[in-house]
């Protein structure tokens, strides 16, 4: 494939796909909408093959770790075993039930879900330590952050309104007015930024995602 085609083909596909998706959102024309729906199904199927690439990468990296007996190789062994055991069970041994099969569900609910919850629960500790660093009074802005955060924390915790009932409405005001206004300001900027990026992508001017020098 020539360099010109290799460079321009993704841009042409991006342009056509972008216009199709936009048209589908704004216009209701039965045949056109069906075409886009079919196109999206094709995209979903095609992109699913990327999972195979992901599996291949993981397998290669961890198989090499095991073979070379690198530090922590037994973790790689556990990963490969768990990954392929669930894959084989879910696809080939589930009798067509796939992820709804009882053995698969048992291992998923009793192995994966607790681990997932454990990682999520660590957030509570991380929030505390990062909040401590963020709330140190170093500037006028940090002082405003500290004061509003303390008010909101007390207002949201049961102890706050128990000591001073008026803190509840103050907390609600901080969240509903200054906080929402700030967030909406950011959202308007993001929306316009996405639109600007969309135009650059459709015109083939935003090529960073194709690599340097693309």
């Amino acid at each position: 494939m020539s360099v010109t085609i290799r460079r321009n083909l993704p841009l042409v596909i991006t342009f056509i796909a972008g216009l199709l998706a936009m048209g589908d959102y704004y216009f209701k024309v039965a045949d056109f909408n069906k075409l886009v729906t079919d196109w999206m199904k094709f995209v979903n199927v095609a992109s699913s093959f990327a999972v195979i690439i992901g599996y291949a990468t993981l397998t290669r990296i961890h198989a090499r770790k095991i073979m070379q007996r690198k530090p922590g190789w037994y973790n790689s062994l556990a990963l490969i075993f768990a990954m392929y055991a669930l894959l084989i069970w879910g696809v080939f041994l589930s009798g067509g039930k796939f992820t709804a099969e009882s053995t698969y569900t048992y291992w998923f609910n009793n192995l994966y879900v607790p681990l997932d919850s454990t990682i999520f629960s660590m957030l509570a500790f991380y929030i505390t330590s990062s909040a401590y660093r963020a709330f140190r009074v170093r500037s006028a802005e940090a002082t405003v952050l500290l004061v509003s955060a303390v008010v909101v924390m007390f207002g949201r915790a049961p102890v706050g309104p128990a000591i001073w009932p008026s803190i509840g409405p103050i907390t609600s005001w901080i969240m509903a007015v200054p906080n929402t206004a700030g967030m909406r300001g950011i959202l308007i900027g993001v929306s316009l930024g996405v639109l600007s990026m969309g135009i650059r992508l459709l015109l083939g001017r935003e090529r960073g995602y194709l690599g340097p020098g693309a």
Partner: protein
Amino acid sequence: MLPIPTAANQSAFIALVAISTIMLVTLYLSLKGIRKPTIRKIAGLDAIGEAVGRATEMGRPVHFTPGIAGLGTDTGPQTLAGLSVLAYVAELAAKYKTTLWTTIRIPQVQPLAAEIVRQAYIKAGVPDAYDEDKIIYLSDTQFAYASGVVGLMHREKVAANIMIGGFWAESLLFAEAGFLTGAIQVAGTAQTSQIPFFVAACDYCLIGEEILAAGAYLSKDPAQLGAIWGQDYAKAIAMVLIAVGVVLALAGDNTLWKLLSGPLWK
């Protein structure tokens, strides 16, 4: 007969056409050199060079993640913005001969990221230094991916942690892991719920639209800068509409609200 936008989308369609036209005009003016727009300094993007340089001096690796947003979702542009920054980071890493770890959650992003990093090493003149095993797909599941990233950051003792893209609850896990390894951290996301975490825990934070302007900022491409310039006019229109809307709402008139929420015609 030409199709017309659905009733609920009519005002949005008109706004899209109007703002797109403004952006196309500014893009054209900039591309033709009729007007040369400038872009304000974005400290977070300037700091990336410093972060990679510091990692090089310390002889420790750099970690990059383009976030966990799928390409086919409305948060997909954040991932593309992250990949634009990855191209820049990979180029710096290749130039300085610093190890770059890129962790991926979305399978579709893996081949894109691998190609970007490979191209960067070729451009830097060190194609042999490219290691495909350093662009690693960890898991499609949020916290499995998060634990993989945190583990990698601790094991490899990363000295620079760059996170640009769409992030959710895992943002603080990454940022705190980076803090614990003593990494200089540059983060950016358009997810409003996660921006406070990055602001609190990272050295530099790109807020909202800044990550979407990263490609233009780093490439200095006149066309891209032109489109960013058009955004300023669109923001001015939004500000005028907000001010007029507030005044009308206070006067008990909801004409503008009706106009903006449609339908405009049958």
